[in-house]
């Protein structure tokens, strides 16, 4: 009996412990093992940071203490002042030590984010997350991202200084990880029942390549080729013009390109421009594969939001000193894509935002200069159709030659199941996009700039920019920056302003950039790159400002072809605001960053209202028309007419381009014309055949579509008003998702803005960092991002800047001059030593 009681009791205990140690899968979701997860001594409760302590501690993990924290290999002492937003201000005796501590502190706040964002480029997400990311990993391999990391590593190894700085940062991250007990793992690891692994230099490069991927992975070659084939060259040229004459390019033509000797004749526009005939496929017919990968499909129906930056000269400011502004529009995630930091050494004093996983400051300022970035939207990826010569698809034609593809089998490790093997075929032009030999995608090779070996100074470029003291040092720091090409805006306390769209720009014809090419006749694809000395730039513009909003870099007089994306309205709006700017203060800069006026409204609404036959409208609709007539076109959070215009525009657009939307309806990926093309056609040729819906017997004209779409829009508008979506903020939410899409860790806020206004807000995408720098002799700055310094959802610093950001407020950047500087906002001081 005693024995039975013991066995029963011990057996129950054993079963209980087993059940609590097992991660069960319910409806496809794997639960963490509940024993470890709920245990308050080591499970998720440990991530519930005490609010009071959090004000002084970093991520609640490193407590301030009388004793210095020890990190092996530090050459001197490092002191860190933590401010009220948990922003570290690092004071070191040399840059290497500063980077060690930057790595250490960033890891303490953002370890999981660093892990996830580096794994994506390495094709290693599934190893951590499980089967649901296999497709993402597979795509990473087929785009050549792990290959890009490999090549970046090889290049960086050739620069001893880059390696030294990179190693310092890695040492700091690993010093933190080495001291980490499971109880202090970021809560995401506990949910995933996983552990962080040690950081490597490759991981840092993977973060950089991941950023490049998110900025330059867009590609329309297949869709453009399809459009050309379906529409014919006349309609294609009308609906997809390469340049909008109304737009205001980043660099103005001052005659600086006269007599420029173009580097390669095949890249000159005279050859490329007229080749919009689909001649790459002389066999004609429906030869472009229609199946296409989500990943490469641009979401054309949604307006792409981009970034803004500008600098104004003293002639336009109240103080007579320049000001600089930057708001990069990127994915809005929690934790934020950015991490604020100040780095002070005897050689530099730099403040700004860093990318978790990457040493140094990416966007910011020092005691002499400020800089910011927006993406150059010039296309740096091309597709080539490969003609395979064998059934296994290992050999292909290139000119008269037969080439063998580099066929590699890669292993994608998957948590909780066997690894998946995938076959990569790498042609001399780049990897092909599918493993499946039956898929049309298997016949497309992708030549993409990030796959090329980058400059060996990838790491040093930003570190040199961080300490640049003047215009020449700024230019010299970025001169080898290659990918993703960025519009580097600049201003200095000595009064200089400038902008450089710096990057590596492949030389090829405009047609090659725009359409799928034939691998058999394309040779090596690109014939080189635009020479450094031909890259456009502007210094101390007579206009008193320099600016960019991802629009065209140059007017058509620039001798190299440009093929890029992004609607132009944001750039035009910014241009208007800058032209009108006088006696600027930081507040006027903020009012521009927060400008939610939609330039499209100015372009479209007057013509649409004029065309509307008001005799056919009832009193209720007339009321709305009258309201629209006096509407300011501002997309504030409480705007109602913004919804009406949005619906009217969408309905009119869809009715005009119903042939495109019908193709989309059939599941095809379609590139659709830009908005400005529609309204130009409306103004100049309202009887154009494009307005006729060929599927109806009637011949529609623009006024008819304007009328019909208004009726449709009003019906939907009234429905929205009746169903609690009455304001712009209700109509479109601004969600800030968690980086691993864990639903409980996401937030949503109410914001002003529109994807194509300067305040380019849309769900999950928008101003990821708003920075304004006033370059007086003693530099002052303000900034905000939608999140907080800590990656821990249990910390007050997880989202303590979010509401400020949503409300259009800023935090003054605490720019300390020395380690012993006193300030009311300093919450604690941490010491680090060897």
């Amino acid at each position, binding site marked *: 009996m005693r024995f039975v009681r*013991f066995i029963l009791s011990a057996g129950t*205990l054993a079963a209980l412990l087993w059940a609590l140690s097992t991660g069960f899968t319910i409806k496809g979701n794997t639960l963490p093992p509940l024993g470890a997860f709920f*245990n308050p001594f080591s499970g*998720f*409760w440990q*991530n519930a940071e005490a609010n009071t302590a959090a004000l002084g501690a970093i991520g609640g993990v490193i407590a301030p203490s009388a004793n210095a924290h020890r990190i092996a290999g530090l050459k001197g002492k490092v002191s860190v002042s933590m401010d009220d937003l948990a922003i570290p201000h690092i004071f070191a005796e040399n840059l290497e030590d500063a980077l060690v501590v930057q790595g250490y502190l960033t890891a303490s706040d953002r370890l999981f984010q660093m892990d996830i964002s580096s794994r994506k480029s390495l094709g290693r997400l599934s190893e951590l997350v499980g089967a649901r990311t296999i497709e993402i990993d597979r795509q990473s391999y087929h785009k050549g991202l792990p290959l890009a990391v490999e090549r970046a590593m090889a290049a960086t190894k050739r620069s001893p200084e880059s390696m030294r700085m990179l190693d310092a940062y890695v040492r700091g991250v690993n010093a933190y990880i080495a001291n980490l007990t499971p109880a202090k793992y970021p809560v995401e690891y506990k949910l995933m029942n996983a552990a962080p692994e040690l950081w490597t230099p490759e991981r840092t490069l993977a973060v950089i390549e991941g950023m490049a991927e998110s900025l330059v992975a867009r590609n329309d070659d297949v869709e453009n080729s399809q459009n050309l084939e379906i529409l014919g060259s006349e309609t294609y040229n009308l609906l997809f013009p390469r340049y909008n004459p109304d737009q205001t390019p980043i660099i103005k033509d001052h005659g600086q390109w006269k007599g420029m000797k173009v580097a390669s004749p095949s890249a000159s526009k005279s050859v490329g421009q007229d080749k919009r005939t689909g001649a790459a496929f002389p066999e004609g017919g429906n030869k472009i594969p229609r199946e296409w990968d989500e990943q490469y499909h641009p979401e054309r129906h949604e307006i792409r939001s981009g970034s803004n930056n500008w600098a104004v000269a003293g002639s336009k400011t109240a103080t007579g000193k320049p000001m600089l502004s930057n708001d990069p529009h990127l994915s809005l995630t929690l934790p934020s894509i950015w991490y604020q930091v100040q780095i002070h050494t005897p050689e530099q004093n730099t403040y700004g935002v860093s990318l978790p996983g990457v040493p140094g400051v990416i966007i910011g300022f020092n005691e002499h200069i400020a800089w910011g970035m927006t993406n150059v939207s010039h296309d740096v990826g091309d597709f080539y159709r490969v003609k395979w010569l064998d059934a296994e698809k290992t050999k292909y034609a290139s000119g008269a030659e037969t080439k063998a593809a580099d066929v590699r089998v890669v292993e994608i490790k998957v948590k909780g199941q066997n690894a998946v093997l995938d076959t990569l075929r790498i042609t001399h032009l780049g990897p092909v996009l599918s493993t499946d030999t039956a898929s049309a995608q298997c016949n497309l090779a992708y030549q993409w700039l990030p796959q090329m070996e980058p400059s060996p100074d990838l790491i040093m470029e930003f570190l040199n920019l961080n300490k640049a003291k003047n215009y020449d040092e700024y230019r010299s720091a970025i001169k080898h920056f290659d990918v993703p090409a960025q519009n580097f805006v600049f201003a200095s306390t000595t009064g200089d302003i400038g902008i450089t769209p710096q990057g590596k720009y492949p030389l090829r014809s405009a047609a090659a950039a725009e359409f799928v090419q034939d691998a058999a006749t394309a040779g090596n694809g690109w014939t080189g790159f635009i020479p450094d000395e031909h890259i456009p730039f502007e210094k101390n513009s007579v206009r008193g400002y320099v600016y960019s909003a991802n629009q065209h870099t140059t007017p058509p007089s620039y001798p190299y072809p440009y093929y890029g994306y992004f609607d132009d309205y944001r750039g035009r709006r910014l241009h208007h605001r800058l032209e009108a700017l006088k006696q600027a203060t930081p507040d006027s800069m903020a009012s521009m960053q927060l400008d939610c006026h939609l330039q499209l409204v100015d372009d479209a609404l007057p013509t649409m209202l004029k065309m509307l036959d008001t005799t056919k409208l009832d009193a209720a609709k007339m009321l709305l028309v009258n309201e629209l007539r006096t509407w300011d076109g501002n997309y504030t959070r409480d705007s109602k007419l913004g919804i009406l215009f949005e619906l009217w525009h969408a309905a009119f657009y869809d009715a005009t381009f119903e042939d495109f939307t019908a193709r989309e309806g059939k599941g095809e990926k379609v590139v659709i014309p830009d908005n400005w093309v529609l309204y130009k056609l409306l103004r100049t040729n309202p009887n154009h055949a494009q307005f006729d819906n060929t599927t109806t017997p009637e011949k529609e004209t623009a006024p008819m579509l304007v009328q019909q779409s208004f009726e449709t829009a009003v019906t939907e508008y009234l429905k929205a008003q009746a169903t609690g979506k009455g304001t712009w903020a209700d109509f479109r939410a601004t969600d800030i998702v968690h980086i691993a899409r864990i639903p409980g860790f996401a937030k949503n806020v109410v914001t002003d803005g529109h994807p194509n206004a300067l305040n380019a807000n849309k769900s999950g995408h928008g101003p990821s960092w708003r920075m304004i720098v006033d370059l007086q002799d003693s530099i002052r700055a303000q900034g905000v991002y939608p999140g907080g310094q800590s990656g821990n959802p249990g910390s007050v610093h997880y989202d303590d800047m979010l509401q400020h950001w949503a409300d259009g407020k800023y935090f003054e950047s605490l720019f300390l001059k020395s380690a012993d500087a006193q300030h009311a906002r300093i919450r604690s001081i941490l010491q680090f030593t060897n």
Partner: protein
Amino acid sequence: MLDTIKKLSGETLFLIVLGAGASFLFQWWAIAPMFVAIMAFLNPPAGRAFAAGFLAGSMCWGLYAAYLDSTNAGRLSGQIGKIFMGLSAAQLNYITATIGGLVGGFAATTGSTLRGLFAR
């Protein structure tokens, strides 16, 4: 009766102190071997052992979790609750206490019955 309550309280307190100590130092299941050993040593009747173990385990886990949650003002538990079908902070706390209680209770009973095997 009073005597039983006194003994139960004493045993529970003893388990809490040593259980919490073990939990801070070792794995999440640290209270299991600890309670087995303590109850094998103290040798209470199986029923009282379970009661003491359950009380000690649930208090060890539940109270500590409640303390951490209160210093955090429920910030994290609110978000974790959303992942677990919208559970409230209090419900998460009950689950925590129950897990601690069950492990503690069965471990204590196992200790007591183990000792029973060798009783004369």
